[in-house]
């Protein structure tokens, strides 16, 4: 006997059916697959059957260790100095490769190191590239979320006026959103070009040639920043529209009341506009965060993760491994890790921005 819930909702189920089936097919099923595959050694192209490997993929990605070394001393016990005058330390690779005394460090690489007292501690990772990808993605999210959200709000306030031709400005700000991200990335590759790029020419012109040419995407110090800037510019229009829709739901009577009470511009914003945008703000913040974690196309088109891993990101690594290196299980593992990260951050954001009663 069909339950009342199913029966009386027949029309509802019929209407939700197509969407639910599609979501199940293309979102939920692949996701369940990814979780299962991350515990196997499944390959994209292989005659070998997949085997269950437990947490091996996770260990390989997240494995870390520390190694504290004393500087090299000569026979007299004096610390040897390297060419740049700093104390010389034994090569980390002599501990991580073919060293029977340190089997647990085999295959690890130095991620970074710091000095304390007379010795230096090396942080080793089993997968330095993935660690770098994690770090870069977090930097990207931390910079992009406030910058893009704030800029979008500023633009929304600017275009939320009754001016002649305001639609023109709205269209201009929104245009980059409509253009494919791949096309935008290609264009910005030309803008950032180290030799004859538009940005270098522009900076050269306004500084009367004093500004040296910078290879924006070819320099590990500027590559991630260049991609952040371009990404903010590209998607800011989308969030501007969301802010704008929030602004237009605020009742004009509130502003009229504020004006009668003699509220200043700042007071109007602080006590009328901002509280009215609460829900919009939560939405914008969460959407930007999730989109920023999914950073891929810009990297794929503009840098391919280089130079020197300065623009590796989590999703780029997932694709690179899953398809480029035919390691579907490795790619799936990265996806699952990303899912856990995004889910926890979204829940924290939800909790921080909850309605306080």
């Amino acid at each position: 006997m069909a339950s009342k819930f199913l029966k009386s909702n027949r029309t509802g189920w019929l209407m939700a059916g197509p969407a639910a089936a599609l979501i199940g097919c293309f979102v939920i099923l692949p996701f369940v697959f990814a979780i299962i595959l991350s515990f196997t050694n499944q390959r994209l192209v292989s005659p070998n059957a997949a085997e269950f490997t437990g947490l091996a993929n996770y260990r390989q990605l997240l494995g870390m260790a520390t190694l504290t070394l004393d500087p090299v001393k000569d026979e007299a016990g004096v610390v040897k100095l390297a060419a740049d005058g700093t104390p010389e330390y034994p090569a980390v690779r002599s501990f991580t490769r073919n060293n029977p005394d340190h089997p647990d460090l085999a295959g690890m690489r130095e991620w970074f190191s710091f000095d304390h007292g007379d010795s230096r501690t090396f942080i080793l990772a089993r997968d330095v590239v993935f660690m770098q990808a994690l770090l870069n993605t977090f930097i990207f999210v931390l910079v992009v979320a406030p910058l893009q959200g704030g800029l979008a709000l500023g633009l929304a306030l600017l275009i939320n006026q009754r001016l002649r031709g305001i639609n023109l400005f709205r269209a201009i700000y929104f245009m980059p959103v409509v253009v494919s991200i791949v096309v935008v990335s290609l264009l910005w590759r030309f803008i950032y070009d180290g030799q004859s790029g538009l940005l270098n020419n522009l900076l050269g012109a306004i500084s009367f040639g004093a500004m040296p040419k910078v290879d924006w995407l070819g320099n590990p110090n500027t590559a991630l920043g260049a991609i952040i800037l371009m990404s903010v510019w590209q998607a800011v229009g989308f969030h501007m529209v969301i802010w704008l829709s929030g602004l237009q739901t605020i009742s004009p009577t509130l502003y009229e009341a504020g004006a009668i009470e003699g509220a200043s511009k700042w007071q109007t914003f602080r006590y009328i506009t901002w509280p009215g945008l609460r829900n919009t703000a939560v939405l914008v913040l969460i959407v930007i965060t999730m989109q920023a974690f999914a950073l891929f196309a810009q990297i794929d088109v503009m840098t391919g993760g280089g130079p020197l891993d300065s623009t590796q990101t989590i999703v780029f690594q997932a694709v690179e491994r899953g398809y480029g290196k035919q390691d579907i299980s490795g790619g799936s593992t990265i996806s699952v890790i990303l899912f856990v990260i995004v889910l926890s951050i979204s829940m924290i954001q939800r909790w921080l921005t909850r309605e306080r009663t």
Partner: protein
Amino acid sequence: MKHFTLAAGALLASVAFTTVAQAQTTLSMWYHGAGNEGEAKVLNQIITDFNASQADWKVELQSFPQAAYNDSVTAGALAGNLPDILDVDGPIMPNWAWAGYMQPLQIDEAKIAGFLPGPKGYWGGKLYSIGLWDAAVALVTRQSILDELKLRTPTLDQPWTGEEFMAALDAAKASGKYEFPLDLGMAWTGEWYPYAFSPLLQSFGGDIVDRTTYKTAEGTLNGEAAVKFGDWWQGLFKNGYAQATQDPADRDGGFAAGKYAFSWNGNWAALGALAAFDDTVFLPAPDFGAGAKIGAASWQFGISAKSAHPDGASKFIEFALQDKYLADFANTTGLIPATKTAAAMTENYKDGGPLAVFYGMTEANALVRPVSPGYVVQAKVFEKALADIANGAAVADTLDAAVDEINADIEKNGGYGH
């Protein structure tokens, strides 16, 4: 109802018609060259000729854009939907053969005796794929540059040594006329790196993977010779001989614009270089100690494992191996025909032809990329290692990391069937 009978009648009639008119079995074929009109014309001509030449088989072609081709084959294989005949990039073939996508060709080996080694795709001792053409890389420069810098013209018998090559770059740098002495094509990321640069490593005495066993890269990719290569490679960029990041436009037009004295480039770009300067010359690869080496193997034809008609598919491939078709392809694409007799039939590769020198280079110096299913991964690892070293990463550590990644991958795949 009346409608239905009409349609059914038409269907019946058409079936009857096709069976009567042509008792040919259809062979499906996939090709990577969608959008390339010249290639399509030659291939369609071969198919038309083949279909008309006999009564048993009929080949039907489906073309894919190159960028989507490999993914299409992988997807097709997973779905059990591969065609009878497919084409495959030479170094990828062992991966597909090992994965069970392809089966050996049924072709009389005598028919390919005169072929260059690169176009012949062997895996496990069996011929899986055969190409109608090959590609080669040369050091492109101008006779006037050689004269002005007072450099000896290297030959296949006496290529430049590593020292002579560096002396040539020094001379070009000292002349102050060029943005960079050498254009390596760093803008062409992807397969260009292993194709064009791993022969340089091999010329130093290293390799991407140990070819005696194909089970490890230890000692070949991080041994003494490889580290020497890595130091040299890093020096090219650190000392201003070449640029680590290159504008793609400079790769395409930089040599013609006089930005570079030497350009490491393939024969497909050779006609353009000749058009830019009358005195363009193509020099053989330098010898860094272990012999001059260049890459080999381009796109080749093979048969899918699931094909029910490998005999017919083999017949078609054998039919396509005629000299006239090899010459047609070479004339259209500028690539090197796979046989000497076909080369003699082409404008560019006949004796004294403007590109004939490339035939000699591929004959003398060609070395295929590692013949292993693991090459797909090894190529990616190698590319990243070279890009990182070019950008200043520590040479020995980077090569060690590459070796670790390659070895872990080989182990994860149960030795890739070697």
